């Protein structure tokens, strides 16, 4: 079975695995915030990690991204978009908060 336009064949097991993992990765950050189980900084870090992992879970199990079956150009496109996103979000925050800090002096 060779793929041309996206990832691996959609399978019931793949969707159900993704759904269970996504539920877990949603329940953890919401639970941490609702019951205030951790200090603020630790909670923020946990939310961030859960979000990144859940995005990867969605890409793998719902969008069926796969390093062997997804065509190279689709992977290149998402890698390039990821690079742009990191530069733009990271760069904006760096510049703007540096500016805030300088204005406060």
């Amino acid at each position, binding site marked *: *079975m*060779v*793929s*041309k*336009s*996206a*990832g691996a*064949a*959609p*399978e*019931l097991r793949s*969707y*159900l695995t*993704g*759904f269970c993992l*996504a*539920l877990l990765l*949603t329940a953890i*950050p*919401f639970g941490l*915030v*609702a019951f205030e189980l951790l200090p*603020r900084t630790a*909670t*923020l870090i946990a*939310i*961030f990690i*859960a*979000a990144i992992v*859940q*995005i990867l879970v*969605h*890409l793998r199990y*719902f*969008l*069926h991204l796969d390093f062997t079956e997804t*065509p190279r*150009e*689709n992977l290149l*496109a*998402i890698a*390039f*978009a990821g690079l*742009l*996103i990191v530069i*733009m*979000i990271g760069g*904006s*925050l760096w510049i*703007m*908060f540096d500016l805030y800090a300088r204005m406060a002096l």
Partner: protein
Amino acid sequence: MTLSTATARATEKTAAEEAGFENRAFGFWLYLMSDAVIFALLFATYMVMVGNTAGGPDGKALFSLTNAFAETMLLLCSSITFGFASLALVARQRAAVQIWLLVTFILGAGFIALEIREFTGLVAQGAGPDRSGFLSSFFSLVGTHGLHVSFGLIFLAVMLLQVTLRGLTPQAASRLYRLGLFWHFLDIVWIGIFSIVYLPGVL
């Protein structure tokens, strides 16, 4: 084997048609990546503006964790029900495709209903997009996502009608495949929204 190639085989499309569908899938993928860049900029704007409340209410005063959780669950469930529709499409079960598309539509409409209720509630208590930089960026980010979901609902309704009237044609299968990419993509953007807007806001 992808959805589009699976259905291609089942309906004996010509090679040229199949290449056309593959190109459209790739083109749609590129569109989604550019859309991701737009959302990334809206996220960056929100993160910069989140403290600029101009003396108005902040996230802690405005956001409801319960509402955000309900929206998250509706969207996540609609993602899995769309997955079931995709599986039914590969299995060539027309009735199952229709049912799962309808369920997905209802869940998506529920999400939009909750979002509209939240937005009108905010505006009614004087926390509209004109109140502060924080609220402008909040409405831009979450509103853009809501508009995408609304267009997804129109797309879903059109495809439901098309499958009902014409059956699981190769064209419908190819469009459903792209709609699936769009729908799952919107759920990914929502992960960013609840993780960056609602949870830190309520905290």
